[in-house]
């Protein structure tokens, strides 16, 4: 019997070890040359869902995309459980190191809108950078504040508490928005900074674009930030934001295009792809909270050839599908940068 016990102990430990290392030795995904799986940001999802049938008929590549959020996309491509990831925020140094041989390629361009819930107010809310940052810092707390009234004098804004709403999960939209706030407010920069999340000094957090939009629609006096395609789909009322030329602008295609007009003539790294708070020479139309969104691809993988084809198609032909969804086609120098990065994907 001792032998039996010994034997079963061996079996047990083998099973226990198998449990713990099981994930690492899982069988590789089956090879199917005509399909690509991706996961990541919700921001480009409306555009990608237009791309999927088109790229399917052009190349016979069957693309699947799960909009699980930028953070999830980065985690998935780092673990190589998908063929490509997507993120609205460029990868941090630690994230790039962890991803081991990944390229980050800009593949869409759009804007972050500021939806709000002010029942009975007919006119469009006009927001200055000062007001927006001080709302999120918790310094302006009521809609009847004189700083807001200065630019919305005739609207008759109510005596109502302002509830700024932010994303509780890590998000590329948060990155673009906090980048903007850090640019326009020194206090914000030192207190909270730029990142996919922050130590929010005021307001309420909610999970995902749908979460923040849900809180805004349920809370009179709330405002938040979410990509313009989402606001459009869900018919949220969005505010106009003051740019450096002293004009209040809406998050439309011309506003995004004007913001992108001041990018350097040659792009060599994605650090140069900052669009928030563009200088005065961007023009009167420039909407100040625009952002690129990125695809993350491994430089070597079994499906590299298809992946290159797909991403190349996305940054060229794919751009023409964007306008109805308020995605501005990539500027030429950004497209050229994307081409150079695509070349790094070895097949």
């Amino acid at each position, binding site marked *: *019997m001792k*032998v*039996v*016990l010994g*034997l*079963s*102990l061996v*079996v*047990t*430990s083998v*099973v*226990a070890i198998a*449990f*713990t290392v099981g994930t690492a030795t899982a069988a590789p995904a089956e090879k199917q040359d005509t399909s690509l799986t991706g996961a990541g940001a919700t921001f480009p999802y409306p555009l990608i869902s237009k791309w999927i049938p088109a790229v399917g008929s052009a190349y016979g590549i069957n693309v699947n995309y799960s909009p699980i*959020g*930028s*953070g*999830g*996309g*980065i*985690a998935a491509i780092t673990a190589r459980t998908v063929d490509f990831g997507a*993120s609205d925020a460029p990868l*941090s140094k*630690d*994230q790039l190191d*962890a991803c081991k041989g990944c390229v980050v390629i800009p593949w869409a361009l759009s804007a972050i809108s500021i939806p709000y819930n002010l029942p009975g107010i007919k006119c469009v809310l006009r927001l200055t950078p000062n007001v927006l940052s001080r709302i999120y810092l918790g310094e302006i707390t009521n809609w009847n504040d004189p700083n807001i009234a200065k630019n919305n004098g005739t609207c008759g804004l109510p005596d109502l*508490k302002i*509830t700024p709403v*932010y994303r*509780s*999960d*890590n*998000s590329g939209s948060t990155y673009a928005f*906090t980048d903007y706030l850090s640019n326009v407010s020194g206090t914000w920069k030192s207190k*909270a*900074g*730029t*990142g*996919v*999340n*922050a*130590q*929010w*000094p005021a*307001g*309420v*957090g*909610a*999970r995902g674009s749908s*979460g923040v939009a*849900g*809180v805004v629609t*349920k*809370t009179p006096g709330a405002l938040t930030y979410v990509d313009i395609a989402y606001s459009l789909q869900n018919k949220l009322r969005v505010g106009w934001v003051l740019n450096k030329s002293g004009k209040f602008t809406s998050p439309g295609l011309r506003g995004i295009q004007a913001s992108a007009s001041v990018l350097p003539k040659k792009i060599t790294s994605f650090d140069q792809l900052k669009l928030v708070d563009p200088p005065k020479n961007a023009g009167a139309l420039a909407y100040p909270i625009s952002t690129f969104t990125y695809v993350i691809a491994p430089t070597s993988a079994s499906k590299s050839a298809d992946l290159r084809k797909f991403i190349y198609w996305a940054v060229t032909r794919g751009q023409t599908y964007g306008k109805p969804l308020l995605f501005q086609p990539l500027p030429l120098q950004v497209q050229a940068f994307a081409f150079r990065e695509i070349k790094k994907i070895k097949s």
Partner: protein
Amino acid sequence: MSIITPDPVAPDAIERHGIRLGDVLFKGVALVAAVGVAAILGLLAYKVFALAWPAMQEYGFSFIWTEGWNPNANVYGALVFIYGTVVTAFIALLLATPLSIAIALFLTEIAPRRLAAPVATMVELLAAIPSVVLGLWGILVFGPWVAQHLEPWLQSWFGFLPIFSGDPSQAGMLPAALVLTIMIIPITSAICRELFSRVPRDLSDGSLALGSTRWEAIRRVAIPYAAPGISAAVLLGLGRAFGEAIAVTQVIGSGNTINRSLFPPADTLASRIASTYQGASSDLEVNSLLYLGAILLVISLVTNVSAQVIVNRFQKARRMSTG
């Protein structure tokens, strides 16, 4: 070698062998199951602590009492989340314990059998609601109701208490604690019902025969008899309240500060891990999140062990008094 050597006395060696194989297999499977669970727990704890180690080295124990979580300045501290975890769980237990005991007593002592069975099923079905659905209900229905009706009402009557001061908010400590209450009631009430149904009939009958009222019989006989079990049920509920992540994340509002009031957004250990682990921007943030996980693990283990100790002590005391 004993298994292969045929027993010379056995008349039917093949049959004996078959039976022995079954025994051996059963023993093996049972052992694998038992040792496997223990091994997984051990390995899991090891992995959590190993991944949290860089943050432990960086911040030491001061992490536990540091208030602040700023991923953009690499400032991490657990105090806000420990506070949120303890306060939400405490409120949830404070509300769920008397309610669960009342539900259980109603079902075993008061309600007619025809009513008791469907009500018991309904209460248990409450446990079958996925927490993410409960969380959605929290966002869309319950949170706004709390902000528009419950919190203003609390403020108008008990506004002098600092815990009910400030502006009502649809996401915060109070709605999270109430959602947790709803989640632990089915667990604790089901156990309490089981306990009360096992109170020996002759004990309560005897108490009634001696002239006590029904309430006195419940208070003097049923509750003392079930007390150790009730305390275990409460601690089981506490474990649930500590660890719940998704529903809490959806209604607590991911706050970054400690407030005296229960209205503003707060956060718990489990909910902060659930909401920010994916896509954490630096390695140190990942390590710090696992440090939070290690703290949660320790808190949960301590409550479970103390539950065992309390139950044992109660049982010993009862044996002393009855025997």
